[in-house]
C-alpha cells in the first residue's frame, strides 16, 4: 500500500493526514467527553447525544446570523458568544430531559438507550421542520480563515487548529472539574459507591442531573466547534454517534485519559488509512479493529478498577 511513494512524500502524507485526523480527533474528543461523563457517571447511554451536538451547531448558526445582521462590527467574536449559548441551551435541555425521563430509568440502562433513541428521532425531525433538510454552514470570521504553511507540502488550516485547541482546553477543564473540584469529588464518590455516597450526605439525584446537563452542555460546545470545520444538517449527529460510542467504550468507560487516547488512536488510524484506501474501507477496517480489540479486552484500554 505504500508502493510508489518516496519516503519524504510518505512523511508529508502522514503529516497531512495526521492533521486531518486531528480535526476528526477534536470532534471525537468533544463528543466523547460529554458521553463519557454521562456514561461513566450513571451507566446511561445517551443515544441523543449527537442531536444535542447538532443543537449546539444550530445555536451557533443562529448566533452567527444574528451577529451578521445586528452586530457586524463584533462578528469576529461571535463564536465565543455562540459557544457559551450552546453550552447553556444544551445543558438546560439536558437537565429537562433528565428530569422528564432519564431519572425514571436509572435501573434499566437498556431502556434508557431506547428512550433516548426515541428522543433523538424527535429532535432530528424537529430540526428538519425548523431548519429544513438542507445542511447549513456558518461564515467563519476572518481571523479563522487561511492556513499556516509549515513546509511546502504541509499546511495547517487555522480553523482546524482552533477547534483542536477548544477540544483540548475543554478536556483539561473537565479534568480539573472531575479531579480537582468538590463537585468532581462527589461525582466520583457516587460512581464508586452510590449508597455510601448518599449515606455521607451527597445528593446523588442532584449530582446525576448536574452531570447529565454537563455532558449535554459539552455536546453543545462540540456542536459549536463542529460548525467551524463542517456544515450542519439534521442528521449530522447520527453520523458520529456510533464512532463516539466506540471511542468511549474503547477508552474504558470511566477513564477520561482513556477516552482521549482512544479518540486519538481511532481518528488517526481512520484518516491515515483513508489516504491509501477508499474512505469506506478505512472506516470499516478501523471499526473492525476496534470491535476486535474490544472482544479481546472488553473493559477497554484504561479501565477503572471498581469493585461492584
Amino acid at each position, binding site marked *: 500500500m505504500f508502493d510508489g511513494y518516496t519516503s519524504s512524500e510518505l512523511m508529508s502524507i502522514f503529516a497531512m493526514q495526521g492533521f486531518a485526523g486531528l480535526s476528526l480527533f477534536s470532534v471525537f474528543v468533544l463528543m466523547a467527553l460529554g458521553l463519557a461523563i454521562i456514561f461513566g457517571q450513571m451507566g446511561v447511554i445517551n443515544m441523543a447525544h449527537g442531536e444535542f451536538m447538532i443543537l449546539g451547531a444550530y445555536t451557533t448558526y443562529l448566533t452567527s446570523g444574528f451577529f451578521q445582521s445586528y452586530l457586524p462590527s463584533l462578528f469576529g467574536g461571535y463564536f465565543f458568544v455562540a459557544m457559551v449559548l450552546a453550552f447553556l441551551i444544551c445543558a438546560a435541555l439536558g437537565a429537562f430531559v433528565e428530569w422528564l425521563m432519564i431519572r425514571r430509568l436509572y435501573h434499566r440502562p437498556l431502556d434508557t438507550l431506547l*428512550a433516548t433513541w*426515541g428522543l433523538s428521532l424527535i429532535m432530528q425531525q424537529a430540526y428538519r421542520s425548523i431548519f429544513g433538510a438542507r445542511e447549513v454552514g456558518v461564515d467563519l470570521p476572518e481571523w479563522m480563515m487561511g492556513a499556516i504553511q509549515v513546509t511546502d507540502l504541509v499546511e495547517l488550516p487555522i480553523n482546524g487548529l482552533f477547534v483542536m485547541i477548544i477540544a483540548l482546553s475543554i478536556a483539561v477543564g473537565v479534568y480539573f472539574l472531575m479531579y480537582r473540584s468538590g463537585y468532581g469529588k462527589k461525582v466520583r464518590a457516587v460512581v464508586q459507591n452510590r449508597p455510601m455516597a448518599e449515606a455521607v450526605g451527597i445528593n446523588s439525584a442532584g449530582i446525576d442531573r448536574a452531570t447529565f446537563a454537563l455532558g449535554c452542555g459539552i455536546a453543545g460546545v462540540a456542536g459549536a466547534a463542529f460548525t467551524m470545520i463542517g456544515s450542519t444538517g439534521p442528521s449530522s449527529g447520527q453520523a458520529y454517534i456510533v464512532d463516539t460510542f466506540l471511542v468511549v467504550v474503547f477508552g474504558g468507560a470511566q477513564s477520561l485519559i482513556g477516552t482521549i487516547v482512544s479518540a486519538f488512536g481511532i481518528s488517526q488510524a481512520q484518516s491515515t488509512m483513508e489516504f491509501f484506501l477508499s474512505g*469506506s474501507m478505512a472506516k470499516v477496517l478501523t471499526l473492525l479493529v476496534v470491535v476486535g480489540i474490544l472482544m479481546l479486552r472488553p473493559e477497554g484500554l484504561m479501565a477503572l478498577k471498581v469493585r461492584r
Partner: protein
Amino acid sequence: MKSSSPLKWFATREGLYFVALAVLLVVLLPLALDPFRLNMVGKYLTYAFVAIGLVMCWGKAGILSLGQGVFFGLGGYCMAMFLKLEASTPEATAIQSTPGIPDFMDWNQLTELPWFWEPFHSFSFTLLAVIGVPVLLAFVIGFAMFTRRVGGVYFAIITQAIAAILTILIIGQQGYTGGVNGITDLQTLNGWDIRTDEARTILYFVCVGMLFLCLFVARLVQNRKLGRILVAMNAQENRVRFSGYDVAAFKIFVFCLAAAFAGVGGAMFTLIVGFMSPSFIGIVASIEMVIFCALGGRLSILGAVYGALLVNAAKSGFSESFPELWPFAMGALFIGVVLAFPNGLAGLYQTYVMPLEDKIFKRNKGAQLEAKPAEKAAEPKPTAEKTPDYDPMIDSYSPEKS
C-alpha cells in the same frame, strides 16, 4: 405445560391465542386485502421473525442486540444473491461486456464472479446459508463477548457497531454487493416468477407458515427448562452461574437462535419484496426492530408479531399521508413504551383484557389459577422505589408467563 394430545392444546388459552393469530393471518387478512396490500403485510411479517428472536434474546435472556438487522440482512442477501445469479443468465445479460454476471458487477468493471458468489448457484446451499451465515456470525460474536462476560450496554453498542460496519462495507464494495442500491431486479426462484400477484400471495402464505414454525420453536424453547434458565439468567445471572450452569453457553445459544430467526425473516423479505438493500440492515433499521418487539411486549412471542404488524402498518400509513410526522410518532413510541408500559401490548392485554375474558367465559378453575399470578406480576411498577445500585435488571418486568 405440554398436554398429552396436541389437539387439546388448541383449547387452552395459549392455544386459542395462536389460533386467533392464525385466523387473522390466514383467513381474515387475505380476504380483506388486495394482493398489493397483502404483499405489504407479508413484508411486515418478515420483521416479526426478527421480533420473535428479540423476545427470546432481549425479553427473556436480557441481551439487547442492536444489530439484528445484520442477521436479517445476511439472510436476505444470501437469498438475493441466489435470485440474482438466477436472473443473470448469459442470455439475459448478453448486452454486458461480461455476460453471465450480475449487472452491477458489470457496471463496476468486474470481469468474473467473485469467489463468495459461486456457491450461491446452488439452491440447497442458499437455504443452508440463509440460516447458517447469520448463526455463524452470531456464534463468533456471542462466543467472543459472552465468554468474557460482556453484556448489557456494552454488548448493545458493539452489535450496533457491527451493524454500522456491515452497512458501510456493503455500500463501499459496490462491485461485489450492489452498493447502496442493493441487489435489485430479482425475477425467478428456480424458474418460478416471484413477481406475479399469484406468486406473491403464495409467498405470503409461505411466510405465514414459516412464522408459525418459528413461533412454535420459540414456544418450545420458552416452555422448557431452557427457557426458565434464560429468564433466571436475566434476573440473577450470578445465582444461575453459581448453580452450575454455563451462562455463556445459554447466551450464545439464544443469540444464535435470534440470529437464525432474523436470517429466515430476511430471506422471506427478499422473496416478498423482490430486492434487498443496505437500508434495511443499518443502525436505524436495526434499532427499529427492537421497537417492534418492545411494543408487542418484550416477553410475548405472539405480542412481537402484533408489534411488528402494527408499527409497520402505522409507518406506511403515516408515510403515505404525513411523512414529516412519522419520526415524531416513532420517537414518542420509543419513549412511551419504555416509560409508560414496559410490558408492551401483551402486558396491557394481560392486565386489562384477560380479567374480562375470565369473567365472560367463566373459565374453569385451573385456567383461573393459572392466570392469576400472571396478572399480579404484570401490574405496572416502573416507578417503584428500589435501591438503585446493583443489578439493573432486578426489578424490571415480570418474567412470568407471556
